[in-house]
């Protein structure tokens, strides 16, 4: 099994990347970790005429703290992000989610930016990005533009990144004090492809829910906010009974379809169950300082 022929570039600077993506437009695909794109190329589902390999550009894999915002280069490897002390401290939900994104050998190559830009509906990181209210910085010949998750995730395997552009940076606000979080998913194996999953981040004032963001994966063309559940919990003391009750509302938030792996009904019920568990697991964990 071999990919169709392509022209290969391995630029070392962002300026070269933008020039190449601008020159080849729709014919070019950026190559990040390749853990989603190369399988599609092997099966010749994807046949890009030009590959712009981002792996030689050293400016793209930095992790930094910009005055309370976690700034991630798109080429931060998933296993590296999980181990990053800065990621764990500023943004525990991201580190928690990165445990689920694949087996170790895949996460050693796979990148945070690559998974977000690929936008697979069952991928974990888009769900985490929505729960974390990430900001996506896209760059092309006309400069940079920034998008929130609602605008970035356009549909199945589709983002707002236009030909000639690439995902340049991901910015995530630092978790507030007294924040708890969890990511859980269900699938045949933790290391395999998920059927569904829920990312939860909750900020508490004592026992009261001050802020909550819940996002589900595998139940739509992109990650879905569980707003009905969030509304039920916001401003209230999070008792076990209330959490169970609120999670039921998640059924109204999602409109999944039936596929080979699960029926729409199953995915709805799964989202309810995972939402309840994610909230409870988050509350059982440590609070941020």
């Amino acid at each position, binding site marked *: *099994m*071999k*990919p*169709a*022929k*392509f*022209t*290969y*570039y*391995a630029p070392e600077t962002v300026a070269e990347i933008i020039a190449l993506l601008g020159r080849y437009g729709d014919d070019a695909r950026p190559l990040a970790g*390749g*853990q989603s794109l*190369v*399988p599609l*190329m*092997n*099966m010749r589902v994807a046949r890009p005429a030009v*590959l712009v*390999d981002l*792996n030689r550009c050293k400016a793209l894999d930095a992790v930094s703290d910009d005055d309370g915002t976690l700034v991630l280069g798109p080429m931060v490897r998933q*296993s590296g992000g999980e181990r990053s002390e800065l990621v764990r401290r500023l943004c525990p939900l991201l580190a928690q989610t990165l445990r689920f994104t*694949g*087996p*170790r*050998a*895949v996460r*050693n*190559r796979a990148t945070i930016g690559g998974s977000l830009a690929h936008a697979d509906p069952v991928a974990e990181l888009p769900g985490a990005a929505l729960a974390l209210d990430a900001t996506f910085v896209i760059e092309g010949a006309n400069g940079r533009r920034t998008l929130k998750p609602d605008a970035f995730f356009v549909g199945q395997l589709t983002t707002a990144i236009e030909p000639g552009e690439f995902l340049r940076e991901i910015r995530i606000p630092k978790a507030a004090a007294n924040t708890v979080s969890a990511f859980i998913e269900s699938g045949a*194996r*933790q*290391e*395999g492809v998920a059927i569904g999953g829920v990312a939860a981040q909750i900020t508490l004032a004592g026992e009261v829910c001050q802020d909550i963001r819940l996002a589900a994966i595998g139940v739509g063309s992109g990650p879905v906010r569980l707003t009905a559940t969030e509304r039920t919990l916001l401003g209230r003391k999070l008792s076990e009974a209330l959490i169970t009750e609120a999670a039921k509302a998640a059924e109204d938030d999602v409109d999944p379809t039936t596929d080979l792996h699960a029926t729409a009904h199953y995915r709805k019920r799964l989202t309810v169950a995972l939402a309840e568990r994610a909230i409870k697991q988050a509350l059982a964990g440590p609070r941020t300082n």
Partner: protein
Amino acid sequence: MTTETTHVRLTVNGRVYERTVEPRLLLVDFLRHELGLTGTHVGCAHGVCGACTVIMNGETVRTCITFAVQAEGAQIKTVEGLAENGRLNPIQQAFHENHALQCGYCTPGFLMTVTEFLDENPDPSENEIRHALAGNLCRCTGYVNIVRAVRAAAEKMRSGAVQR
């Protein structure tokens, strides 16, 4: 930097190789067909089964979804690089002693995965072992003996019972 063929220079099991290849050549095919190192196997060829796992620059990677040209300048270790002075290393020996293989097709991938795993976690629980192996598929053994072999290898390596 571009187009039809590309020059690749890399180190595999301590030996430097240079070849001119098409950019679309997968690293696993490069190892097998260009270098003759056929211990690394092609299983699914789309990154699911783990049979093609090698260690590149200290970390496991799947060579069926990595291009050879991306390994320019890399240090690679394949299953051929595990034995030392013609003797099986403790992980290989433990797989042999615990019957952790039947047809053997998946074994090189398992050995490389376990090499990285035990390097980072010399005293793993059974649960940790099972999670570490979950990205490698074996259709023969049912995994029980593989888990047993990893535990045995860990014990042997910790006790230093095998001196090389």
